[in-house]
């Protein structure tokens, strides 16, 4: 780490610096590029009617003929935040917001089925191998600037998951990237609850030195851990059901069984009301978990990463489980030595519901280009490849009734691109969520000068104050959070704790 300062120390130092120095001026500095106080700003207005005119519209809808999948010179009409129509020469009231889409492409907002964005603090409750009681929703940080950066890449929804240290991890949060709202405002209320599972090297702690040895250390032990947890959950459910029956029968003075949040979540899985998102790589462990799920009466909603999914594509398709994969990552640990970039294409060809995810605050800004890799490796048609990052993850998260494609009745979540959405040369121009414009590149660019000027003015104020530490305010040390990522990327340690 010779070229980057110690990130942990830097963070501590920066924290101290921001507390002691500069009397809060530093805290008042603009924190991102388009609005200094955006994280607690009012949300963007929702125009009554919006129409995008004359664009190339990729609906990502299922069951449409190839010629209707990409509509040339078409209009998209949103009313009160909901898509009303897609067609030509759509009639709108005179006060409608009109957007000239000439030469532009429009797609649904992109959906990331595996994210850790906005999840602050530890992503793993690593003290136990089963931690179904902890919740991402409790630690959502709406000030995470990556929310804005990902909006700038066309992302509108993320499945925020715990890490993969535990065979049974914590409860997820499906969020809409409503940058500026408080944590609760990010939650997508319509989304079913879910939970993270993890198989293979991470729960068996192969690649890190754990402070204490912990069961399990083999894939066989991982299976055993999961089965034991469900057996306990069955006893728990039975005890509660017996208690409830007894109450109904009018029995008095009963002591109810103790409530257990850990087991309660597992009961919800067996009841089908909590979706399992299982970090997995190898074919053997994928088959194992499908068998376990069958034994306990549920279907795994998604196998995450699932880099050997192509080896068991038929089994995945038959089980009804979705596959949410990296497009082309491999060889960073032993269990991914057989990962191939054709994974998505082979699974898609064999009728598995496939999505591509990011698992990375950075990659989540370019999911459209991840989708393009399904075209490159295995020749998935472009329209179908786009669904890997729109409709398919929506189906996997069971939110496709509301989002994932541009169809009447769905949320007004859409992206305006400068060109073909799968082209490396295209940029996002605007990103809309619920018919509200959360990102506009033009506005962003225009605001930069104002913000730079404001920043300089604040710095000047500090200098004028005569504080000898004024130069500190000009500090250009990287954001400590990002230093972690930089160091990772330079030193070959992927975010093992967060999930890869």
């Amino acid at each position, binding site marked *: 780490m*010779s*070229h*980057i*300062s*110690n990130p942990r*120390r*830097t963070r*501590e*130092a*920066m924290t*101290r610096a921001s507390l002691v120095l500069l009397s809060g001026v530093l805290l008042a500095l*603009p924190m*991102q*590029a388009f609005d200094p106080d955006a994280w607690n700003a009012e949300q963007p207005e929702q125009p009554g009617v919006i129409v995008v005119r004359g664009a190339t519209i990729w609906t990502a809808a299922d069951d449409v003929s190839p010629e209707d999948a990409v509509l040339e010179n078409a209009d998209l009409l949103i009313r009160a935040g909901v898509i009303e129509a897609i067609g030509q020469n759509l009639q709108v009231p005179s006060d409608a917001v009109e957007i000239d889409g000439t030469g532009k492409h429009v797609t649904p907002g992109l959906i990331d089925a595996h994210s850790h964005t906005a999840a602050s603090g530890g992503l793993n409750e690593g003290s136990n191998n089963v931690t179904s009681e902890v919740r991402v929703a409790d630690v959502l940080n709406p000030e995470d*600037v990556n929310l804005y*950066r990902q909006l700038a890449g066309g992302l509108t929804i993320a499945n925020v998951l715990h890490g993969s240290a535990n065979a049974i991890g914590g409860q997820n949060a499906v969020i809409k990237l409503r940058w500026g709202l408080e944590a609760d405002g990010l939650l997508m209320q319509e989304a079913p609850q879910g939970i993270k599972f993890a198989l293979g*090297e991470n729960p068996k702690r*192969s*690649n890190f030195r754990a402070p204490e040895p912990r069961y399990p250390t083999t894939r066989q032990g991982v299976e055993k851990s999961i089965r034991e947890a469900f057996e306990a959950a069955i006893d728990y459910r039975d005890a509660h059901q017996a208690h409830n029956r007894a109450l109904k029968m009018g029995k008095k003075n009963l002591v109810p069984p103790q409530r257990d949040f850990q087991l309660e979540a597992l009961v919800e899985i067996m009841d089908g009301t909590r979706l399992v998102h299982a970090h997995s790589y190898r074919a053997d462990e994928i088959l194992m978990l499908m068998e376990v799920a069958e034994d306990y009466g549920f279907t795994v909603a998604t196998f995450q990463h699932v880099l050997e999914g*192509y*080896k068991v*594509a038929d089994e995945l398709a*038959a089980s009804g489980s979705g596959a949410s994969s990296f497009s*082309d990552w*491999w*060889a*960073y*640990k032993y269990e991914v030595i057989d990962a*191939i*970039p*054709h994974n998505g294409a*082979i699974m898609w*060809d064999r009728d598995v519901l496939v999505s591509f995810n990011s698992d990375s605050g950075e990659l989540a*800004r*370019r999911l459209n*280009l991840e989708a*393009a890799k399904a*075209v*490159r490796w*295995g020749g998935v048609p472009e329209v179908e490849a786009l669904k890997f990052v729109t409709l398919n993850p929506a189906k996997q998260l069971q939110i496709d009734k509301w989002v994932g494609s541009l169809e009447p009745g769905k949320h007004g979540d859409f992206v305006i691109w400068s060109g073909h959405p*799968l*082209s*490396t*040369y295209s*940029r996002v121009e605007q990103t809309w969520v619920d018919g509200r414009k959360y990102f506009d590149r033009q506005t962003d660019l225009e605001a930069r000068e104002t913000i730079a000027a404001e920043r300089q003015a604040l710095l000047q104020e500090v200098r004028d104050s005569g504080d000898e*530490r004024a130069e500190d305010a*000009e500090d*250009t*040390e*990287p*954001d400590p959070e*990002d230093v972690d*990522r*930089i160091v990772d*990327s*330079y*030193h*070959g*340690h992927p975010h*093992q704790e967060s999930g890869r």
Partner: protein
Amino acid sequence: MNLDKTKLMHLRSHLVSKTSHRSSHKPVFSTLAMLMILLSPWTLVAQDGPIVALVGATVHTVSGDDIGNGTVLVQDGRIIAVGAGIETPDGAEVVDLSGKHLYPGFVLSASALGLTEIGAVRATNDLGEIGDNNADVRAEVAFNADSLLLPETMAGGVLTAHVSMNGGTITGTTAVMRLHGWNWQDMTISTPAGMRLDFPSVSTAGDDEEDAESSSEAIEQLDELIENAEHYAKAKAAGTVDHDPKMEGLLPLLEGEVPLYLFAYNKAQIEKALDWTAEKGLDNLVLFTGQDARYVAERLATENIPVVLTGILSLPWRAWEGYDTPFTTPSVLHEAGVRFAISDSASSFGAMNSRNLPFHAAQAAAFGLPKEIALRSVTLSPAEILGVADHIGSIDVGKEATFFVSNGDPLEIRTSIERVWVQGQEVDLKNRHQYRLYDKYNNRPRPAATSE
């Protein structure tokens, strides 16, 4: 024979100029060049190996204009003619590339390829040696010619990689490697390409005293190391010192014979590192850096320091920076007049996806870098910066026949790389780990349709 005479003249003069440059690691080649001066083109062609004629492609030379329906003649691993309307010599093997595009292989200018297989499996990594000064360690001797990663990288059109280690402050000498060959010796294009120095982290505002202390201590140690090497040189000349390989390793660097490959990332570190090299008189250098290069662009241009820029596909390092900061850094450098190449990082983690190199450049093009500069930044520019432009980097007479055929713009992900040649040898793109797995499981018998 109908070889273009002017092309051959060009070839001759090119080869002559080559003999005076880096001839040491290609003695056979210099002999060949001498022969060419003596012999007429006719006999020359007759006495050398068979000619392969690639015809019909749009040839993207990178060094000059694109050539529609072009012909490229290859002999003995080298390009002997490039142009439109060149007749195919009798007996040449003709490769019809009509409708296709021919590009020079991409050059990855910072890489751990061949030195790592699986980052998380320690036994597969030969990336960092122990100790502060590893000047006597050379990267290429552990370059695994049969690494599974190499064919996958070539399948993306990336055909050359500059590899370096990362242990200590002076991490060792680096090498430019072909990704196809029989062993590290015949895969080496250039060694030592440079001496890698990972500049110590630099204390900045907000660091506590402990950090500041360790940072200045590290720089003092580096000063001391250079001072010791200077003393060693004097003592050696005076014959008053025993051979010390680690000190010995530093001498070519101090004498400017081997360029300094300076790795420094954030603004404060880059500035301190540049001040330091100026102070030490180390002016034969290349800066390997990241997005903060934008803040020192003018200085890099003024001091004519070439840059290998990594981390285009990264997050901005500071919350207040524009969301596209890493994407626009290449165009900032370009506009300032800095010579630069675009690369992935030299990390073990980056090695597995080296094939995505062109898309780093494409991202820069999406955010303002002219497309032709983006292409150049992963072909000819890195070859120039790494001192191997006489071998690779463009499709020109005299260079190695190291190129690929695509069905379109290779900076677009949807484009396919269809065929690859390294030093005149075609590489079988199906003979690789990932394709074998694809082929096996794509042909797995499908389950019988279940009856209703």
